[in-house]
């Protein structure tokens, strides 16, 4: 009992981390596109749980709402609409396998490097992600809001014009003239 109370968060971390990884592997190995999409959804949800463990409630729920509720539903929608059948049997990476292996090894090496070198004390001492503004601990939503609407206001606003352009482009290029 004592153990659970003390290490519950760590245990949960491993549960969701393994879940996220397994689901991510599923996304690229499963044959049926529907299963791939659902694996991706599971992966997103696990990542949301990981956010939650770092006290980033806002990010976690936005992750569920936007990725889980919006984007993945659209994915499923398209998959159901075009009625994709099982992908033909073929090697996952095909002729690019050597390159994929090299890149994967590099990535793993990078992650290991970071993992072995980071300053554990500093990370443990840091407050949870996004909970402080100018030293004052506030809610996660407030911290995100301050960051987005004050420190990074300009990129945020430019991004909105950017999305408008993306929308206009999709309509212009997509519609029958």
């Amino acid at each position, binding site marked *: 009992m004592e153990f659970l109370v003390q290490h519950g968060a760590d245990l949960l971390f491993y549960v969701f981390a393994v879940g996220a990884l397994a689901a991510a592997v599923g996304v690229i190995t499963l044959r049926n596109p529907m299963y791939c999409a659902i694996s991706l959804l599971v992966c997103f949800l696990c990542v949301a749980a990981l956010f939650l463990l770092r006290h980033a409630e806002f990010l976690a729920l936005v992750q569920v709402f936007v990725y889980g509720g919006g984007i993945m539903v659209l994915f499923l929608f398209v998959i159901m609409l075009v009625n994709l059948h099982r992908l033909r049997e073929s090697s996952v990476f095909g002729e690019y396998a050597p390159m994929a292996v090299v890149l994967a090894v590099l990535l793993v090496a990078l992650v290991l490097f970071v993992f072995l070198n980071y300053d554990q004390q500093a990370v443990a001492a840091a407050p949870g992600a996004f909970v402080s503004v100018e030293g004052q601990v506030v809610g996660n939503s407030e911290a995100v809001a301050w960051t987005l609407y004050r420190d990074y206001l300009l990129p945020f606003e430019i991004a909105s*014009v950017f999305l*408008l*352009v993306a929308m206009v*482009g999709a309509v*212009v*290029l997509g519609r029958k003239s």
Partner: protein
Amino acid sequence: MGAIEPREFLLLAPEIFLAVAGMVVLAVGSIGRGLAHRTTALISLVSLAVVGALVLTVQGPAVGGEAILAGMFMIDGYALFWKGIFLLATALTIVLSMRFVEEGGYPAGEFYALLLFATTGMLFMASGFNLLSIWISLELMALSSYILAGYFKRERRSNEAALKYFILGALSSGILLYGISLLYGATGTVQLTELAARLPAAMAAEGMLVSLGWLLLAIGLFFKVAAVPFHVWTPDVYVGAPTPVTAFLAVGSKAAAFAILVRILYQGLAPLLVEWQIVVAAVAVVTMIWGNLAAVTQSNVKRMLAYSSIAHAGYVLIGVLAATEDGLWAVLFYMLAYSFITLGTFATVILLERREYAGETYADYAGLARRSPFLAAMMLIFMLALTGIPPTGGFFGKVYLFAAAVQSGWTWVAVVGVLMSAVSLYYYMGIVVYMYLRDAEDDTPTPLPSRLLAGAIGLCAVITVLLGILPGPIVELAKASLLQLP
């Protein structure tokens, strides 16, 4: 970082106005079906003029070099000079496009709106003082350009251009962003002055990380200015895109990419001066050689101009390389001259195109001097200017660039530049030879289909020649628009 003051939004008025104008054009284009072409073009031109006035009146008095919006947006002479170039380039592009869009039967409102949005991105790029805001404004410009490149969606070449541009552009953006993220990881900031301040310490602690970061960042930027070996997208995109869009890409996008390249190298990566000078020198030399040699072999005029624009990116890099005041104002002067020359050239190509893509081979220029003496004369001026022969702006531009390089000790790069300019004489004069010395199959005079377009060509030619005779005022202006040097 404190709260944002209302004054800072006022200083942003030109950019905000332009973005809103883009939306208005979008709305007008979808409401007014029949009159949309003329109306939207007119609204776009007027709003560009208003933006120009706003830049001068609102941001002009604040050129002291003030970073607003939490250090994201810099108002200085350097930014204002580039903004001037962008606004002029966009205005001329709109004039170039009017007939094209109308005859192609493509929706006009969206076309001009996308141009305005792309210009908004460029204005933000010129003032960007934080790698993040620079990156997102670059994306705004790039995304609009991808769509514009594929605007003639019934043409396969246009589709191909858009797709290639998009995929390679996205790749380069990814590389750029990766570089930024590594730099952020090493220094903990993306704000340019802070970056410069923290780089020496970070370089000592995380040398690998910093080197990889700035290299990737530089590669991403070289992609955008189309420098060899990151130029592969350029010819296909320039040939496939609608010609006014090509002109816009060759002038606007390139200039904007140079604007941020110079600012990032000079202000953000200043402590790495020695390192990046070597890289820029190598890229400049390769770019000049490859661009010019490849241009020699082309038979399609737009393709030749694509390689020529690559070569010109090489020349400009010489000025960047110098990292002196002389180099910097030479870059500014050259980009201004180059904009007018290139826009004029493409405008002439547009006038000669009979349908969407015909009229692009050298053979189509045969006997042009007899068929249309005016166009031939204009083309002659532009070709002379691109080669760098007096009395044109191109001559002084190159002289200033090469001189700056020589002064700062990069003589061998300047020598390569001069040699390659000589090579470029071959293909530029090829067109002149066709125009003046070959006979056309039919000698009937080509009428000028559009007075407005002819006027724009004339204007570009006059400015090109004026810059070649009286470069003084623009040089003074450029000298007043310098960045703090590394």
